[in-house]
């Protein structure tokens, strides 16, 4: 490579590499590109010194600035909390009715409630509170434990079948699985429940199940099957079904007695946040 070879056609220097008589031209990278490349190298060295960069056996080099994204997120969250502390305090001290009647406080509560719902509730109840099978829809007017602001606040605080000593508690027995009722009896009861919700049913089976319902179910669901909120027992005569309205799902529910769990949020969320959540859930459309 001591002699520079100039390509005759283009007037450009060649690299000296040759394949089957084809020679490579030495067209250097643009100077601006080289410049930026060197600047990047210098930048990288500075970055290694100042910022976390190299892994070590037990950790990594922290850099002179001791920067940590986790710390800056925590700092930002704390800053936000501090900025909101004033209104948060007002929210904590206000009654639910006061929150609902003050447009500014309501707007704040709704915004906080929506965010808290997305963080804590949407996983089961859906991002719009629309629910799913075995997770109640919060938009409709059907409430197992009551749809007033205080009811919602209390349900969020203590949960359902949760670890809280005050938890909302109801238990549908597993009539079939526990050998209390026979499969035939449960088939009859299924027809009875279908009949309760004003759908065509086998009237002979309904007749056979009348006494069964009175003896086993009416104590919680009521003699007419309308349910009772103090027990959290659902209304069997309406159009809403937590586990589905088909005969199969009704049979399954009587046989197995499913019961979902809602955690207690009392210790995890601040009272103000729970208030905001109650106001938000109440506003979804079903609030009483």
């Amino acid at each position, binding site marked *: 490579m001591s002699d520079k070879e100039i390509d005759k056609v283009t007037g450009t220097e060649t690299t000296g590499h040759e394949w089957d008589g084809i020679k490579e031209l030495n*067209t250097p990278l643009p100077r601006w590109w080289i410049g930026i490349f060197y600047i990047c190298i210098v930048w990288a060295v500075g970055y290694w010194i100042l910022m976390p960069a190299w892994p070590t056996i037990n950790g990594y080099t922290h850099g002179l600035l001791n920067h940590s994204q986790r710390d800056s997120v925590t700092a930002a969250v704390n800053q936000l909390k501090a900025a909101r502390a004033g209104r948060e305090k007002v929210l904590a001290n206000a009654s639910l009715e006061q929150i609902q009647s003050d447009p500014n406080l309501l*707007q704040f509560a709704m915004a906080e409630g929506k965010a808290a719902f997305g963080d804590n509730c949407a996983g089961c109840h859906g991002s*719009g509170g629309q629910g799913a099978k075995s997770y109640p*829809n919060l*938009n*409709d*007017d059907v409430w197992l434990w009551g749809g007033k602001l205080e009811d919602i606040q209390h349900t969020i605080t203590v949960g359902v079948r949760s670890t809280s000593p005050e938890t909302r508690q109801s238990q549908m027995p597993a009539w079939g699985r526990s050998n209390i009722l026979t499969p035939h009896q449960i088939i009859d009861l299924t027809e009875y429940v279908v009949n309760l919700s004003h759908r065509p049913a086998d009237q002979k089976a309904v007749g056979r199940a009348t006494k069964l319902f009175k003896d086993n179910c009416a104590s919680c669901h009521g003699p007419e099957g309308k349910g009772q909120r103090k027990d959290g027992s659902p209304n069997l005569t309406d*159009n809403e079904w937590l586990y589905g309205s088909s005969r199969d799902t009704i049979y399954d529910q009587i046989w197995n007695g499913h019961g979902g769990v809602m955690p207690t949020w009392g210790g995890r969320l601040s009272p103000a946040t729970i208030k905001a959540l109650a106001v938000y859930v109440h506003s979804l459309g*079903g609030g009483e």
Partner: protein
Amino acid sequence: MTAPIRVDTEAAQPLPVQAADGVSRSDAEASNSAAARKLYKSRVPIYPKEVDGRYRRLKWAMMAVTLSIYYLVPWLRWDRGPGAPTQAVLVDMAHERLFFFFIEIWPQEIYYITGLLILAAVSLFLINALFGRLWCGYSCPQTVWTDLFIWIETRIEGDRGARIRLVAAPWTASKLAKRIAKHSLWLVFAVATGGAWVFYFTDAPALLHQLLIGSAGLGNYTFIAILTFTTYTLGGLMREQVCTYMCPWPRIQAAMTDREALSVTYLRDRGETRGLHRKGEPWEGRGDCIDCNQCVAACPMGIDIRDGSQLECINCALCVDACDDVMFRIGRPEGLIAYDTEANVLRRLKGEKPRFRFFRPRTLLYAAVIALVGAIMLASLATRHTLALDVIRDRNPDFVTLADGSVRNGYTLKLMNRNGAARRFRLDMKGVAARKVVLIGLPDTRLPASVEVEGDKVRTLRLLVTIDRAHFQPGPQPITFILSDPTRGESREASAIFVGDTR
């Protein structure tokens, strides 16, 4: 376009000093003309020679006007009443408003900007079809700032010859001082350019104070830095490279122009055959061009206008001034290079009379589009509503079935009051037989409802509409919300649909 008539500038002939009696011949080369440019060749610097004349003065005037508009407009004040910004032209990002004197545009009305952009584009087409690249030559920021920076350069380092000598000269204290002075002044103007830009987005007097004491937002300093960099780089360092390589307009223009468009033209019918002229020689049998190259020396784009119309030419007409001066000195009529059309050159070559065809299908069409878009915009601006209503249907959940089988849909309504004062609107609904309507966050939960909206604000309401199963029809049903101001007789409607399950 005709095949360019070229003088081979590479031909190594000793240049005569005189092109004609009293006119020296410039050794300027058209280094930036397409034929002289090579793909891998470094840029050949251009040192435009300062000229004086009709168009140069017009350009100074245009520079003063355009720069004044740019730097001064943010400082104009406009009284909009209490609480409203007092800046005449303000893009208020934080509050999502655009103020232009008596007009206040909301984000929902961004189509006005679309209309303005259409008008600007078609106007550019029309002006181009009529008078060529007036935009490039006189009012493009690239041209204006480059012109300003070349003016600064000339004041400090001297004219073309002096600047070329300075480049070749060894680094002395004097050269260093000149260079520092030039770049510092460029930077001052560049900073002022970026500074003026941010004033369009925040109240100018308040922001200037904040900028000076260092308390303005980081965004302001960032934008000033970006615009300082671009102004300094594009106007001071890159200049003609921007127009030649970066700007799409020369390419578009090449497709838009035709032979009847007025542009800076070398009248080759009169100029050729060019050649040096000796004192006392007759002018018969030869062209008026004495090949003095003064047009090339004056060109800020580094081209030779005598090669014909070309992409690099920004039509600044400085070569016209340079040539007119030469023609005057040698006693020939002015206008060898002039605003003329290629069609006229061809007509004169054929012995026909030149004429200007301003009314052509192309120009009439452009004018019609401008008139149409302008009329639509004026009409919509004149009949602009001071209230507006937007409706967003709940999609999550799409609908809710209630215990008794009735169906409920939720809607979020945005009630907009574009007046400065608070107003009481009437909200109503039509289209479906609703059993129940719930307005969330409003004491009055029945329609028609009375809703107060603060001045210049949007009020958001959530509205739940329930239809009995008996009245519910499968398939989407249209539903219309009506917002009206009874005192003004103004009314706006917003449509949505009502859906549910079929069971």
